[in-house]
């Protein structure tokens, strides 16, 4: 176990090193931060002074060494646009992203388990077919489009009138197809302050409404995947000998499905899920942009636009770290629930 963790730590450092070198290597292609900092009529001589001050004229290896030396002390430099240490900037944006991911995870769990289980138990029911059909569509629609459609339907509202409004049935059908709108279209609203730079949307009902559309958009990518995964695993489990045996013993179907079968279905789902939640953090870039959700994804995109190199590098390092951590945790959990997996790879 300890050996495994040490090995992982070494891996993590290696990953961080590679990420930092790559993000430093591409910085010349990210554009000139000075261009973003000064007005267009600023003479070249002034720009040169600024470039010198920021150390942008130094050769690549010198800039990298300076960065690495500071990074070893958890100092990733100052953001060019926020004028603050990049770690502080990221820590301020992190809660928003984590809350979005948490709400999305909650939605995915809440919906994927019952739908997956149902469509495995009754694979031929029309409702199951409908779920599978919709999930195919869900996989193929980009999150950007989902978000825009959701905004149009539930934030702005749509009123349609293909049916005659003066008849009772026509008005009813029109009403059925129209939406009211009124959901918040952007941002976090007025989140409640918890501690330090942490503001939360989970503290009031009004704040929660701001989470609804972004988390549905974000969930729309992963939800179909999970439904299909749970369904497939469950179908397989239901074919297994011990389920057949349990049935033969006359154990109630409810107990078989939800106690025996579901437990074994969820093991692989949890491991896959753990990795996917790491991926969700990366997917937030698109969702946060559309909903102007003030999290890390939006911050990262703005940083690229302004060539804020220190912030870009720090973001990539931290997201890399999140991946490494979630993968390690997943491996550990897998080892715990399935002791036949050997973590250290040593002969037993």
């Amino acid at each position, binding site marked *: 176990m300890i050996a495994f963790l040490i090995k992982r730590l070494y891996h993590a450092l290696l990953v961080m090193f590679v990420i930092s070198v790559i993000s430093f290597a591409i910085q010349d292609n990210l554009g000139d931060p000075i261009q973003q900092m000064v007005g267009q009529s600023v003479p070249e001589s002034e720009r040169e002074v600024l470039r010198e001050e920021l150390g942008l004229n130094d050769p690549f290896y010198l800039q990298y060494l300076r960065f690495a030396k500071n990074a070893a002390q958890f100092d990733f430099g100052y953001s060019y646009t926020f004028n603050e240490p990049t770690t502080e900037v990221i820590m301020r944006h992190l809660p928003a992203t984590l809350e979005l991911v948490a709400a999305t995870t909650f939605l995915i769990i809440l919906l994927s388990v019952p739908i997956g289980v149902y469509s495995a138990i009754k694979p031929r029911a029309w409702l199951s077919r409908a779920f599978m059909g919709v999930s195919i569509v869900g996989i193929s629609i980009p999150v950007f489009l989902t978000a825009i459609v959701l905004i149009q339907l*539930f934030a702005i509202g749509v009123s349609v009138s293909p049916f005659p409004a003066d008849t009772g049935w026509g008005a009813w059908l029109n009403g059925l197809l129209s*939406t*009211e709108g009124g959901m918040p279209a952007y941002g976090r609203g007025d989140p409640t302050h918890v501690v330090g730079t942490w503001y939360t949307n989970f503290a009031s009902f009004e704040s929660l409404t701001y989470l609804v559309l972004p988390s549905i958009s974000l969930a729309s990518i992963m939800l179909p995947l999970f439904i299909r995964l749970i369904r497939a695993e469950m179908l397989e489990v239901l074919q297994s000998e011990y389920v057949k045996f349990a049935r033969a013993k006359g154990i109630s179907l409810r107990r078989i499905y939800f106690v025996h079968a579901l437990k074994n279905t969820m093991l692989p789902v949890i491991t896959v899920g753990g990795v996917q939640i790491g991926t969700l953090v990366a997917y937030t870039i698109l969702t946060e942009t559309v909903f102007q959700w003030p999290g890390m994804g939006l911050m990262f995109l*703005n940083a690229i636009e302004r060539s804020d190199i220190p912030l870009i590098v720090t973001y990539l390092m931290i997201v890399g770290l999140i991946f490494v951590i979630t993968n390690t945790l997943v491996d550990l959990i897998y080892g715990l629930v399935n002791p036949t997996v050997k973590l250290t790879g040593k002969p037993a």
Partner: protein
Amino acid sequence: MIFRKTLLAATIGATMSAAALLPATAAADTTLRMAYDADPVSLDIHEQLSGGILQLSHMSFDPLVRWTQDLEFEPRLATGWEQVDDTTMRMTLREGVEFHSGNAFTADDVVWTIERLKQSPDFKAIFEPVAEVTAVDSHTVELTTKAPYPLLLNLATYIFPMDSQYYSGTDADGDPKDEIVKNGNSYASRHLSGTGPFEVTERQQGVRLAFERNENYWDEASPGNVDKIVMTPISENATRVAALLSGDVDFIAPVPPNDLDRIRDDEDVQLVTMSGTRIILFHMNQERVEAFQDPRVRQAIAYAINQEGIADRLMKGFATPAAQMSPAGYAGHVESLAPRYDLEKAKQLMAEAGYEDGFSITMMAPNNRYVNDAKIAQAVAAMLARLNITVDLKTLPKAQYWGEYDDRVADMMMIGWHADTEDTANFHEYLTACPDAETGAGQYNAGNYCNPELDKLVAEANLEVDLAKRAEMLQQLEQTLYDEAAFIPLHWQDLAWASASNVDIEPILNVMNFPYLGDLVIEE
């Protein structure tokens, strides 16, 4: 009878109507919720010369004078001005004005502010002509220029007096409070004390900027009734429009051209558009392409470009076709210069110059800086193809584009320019003057067009204090640039704002795109 489609919509509808009722009954405050595509980078108004900063300046400070909608000067903190001699202007300052901090506004603040402007990397070039500022008495200042300078009032629109006492001394870290730091956390970038209609109450960069009305604002004649402003940057076009249409914000800018019709058709919102002052143009690099040295080739290209077509179809009417740099209202604007689209004439000129079979060039344009920039470049490339000019077009995001632009890596490059001084000479100094690394002239002249006579003419115009005479000189400049086809003008980018129908934005907007929010009226 309304049937809501889903449970989701029902719950949400209920919350929203409850939320909507609350402020109407409880709030006596009138709040303006606005969304712009970007927020100011700093609270230090001398740190960067950009739209966002000027917007902030007009909200929290007051200029000495400001532009009206017809590009005339309107007194603000300066109540009067007179030219004492060719190089001196005396300005009388408003009395009884207080800064947010409670300090009284005096001539010393103006002197202090101009001296600080002369230190600012971004503003220093504009304030270069000013030699000296002196306080004659507590409410009179004298501005002396190095030579006769006709644009002193244009400059005065950039002078937003700062609270000199408030910004004096050192902060907790021992740094001077008035230092201008580009990439750092200075006192002035976090604290603000101006004379303006709004005080900053909260700032989370990139997320939210909140203002509250200055209770002691001097301008009691102003009809403005906004008590609070919450400004949110929304960079995504579709989201910004959605936020307005759903009623989450009351005022947005800019309005993307694709959504103009959608906003026009909605009765709860209103749209205001204006012809802008930013010119979009192409440079033809004479150093890289020999053919461009021949005026006939340049003219041929000018004849081959259909500005009207681009403005009409590509920009959906959201641009004013241009044949010169100066928009209407500028001193050098020549009414008679119209786009000269004539393909036959163009072909004939190419033949005369001996380039009947055309040639190949490279072209570059940004793809996220100006409205439809990449599409415009494609259209221009297609139009040049009819002259047998083969174009190898590359478009880049703005973050990468400007580096390439500075290096002049393509034969034709696009640029958009707004004159900081709202004056014709500024266009020439940066875009068409003979490039000179020493003086910074022609810094953005990617065409390497050089006509020393024009440079001389502009230098003279900049010493001419008789404004009518000066306008004539600048018009002569535009005419010559047109005749020689020094560059390819495309259009002036139009401006658009939209607001909820009870927010009366029309009287407070202007072509410089800094709405005078202090005068904004919101009807209850």
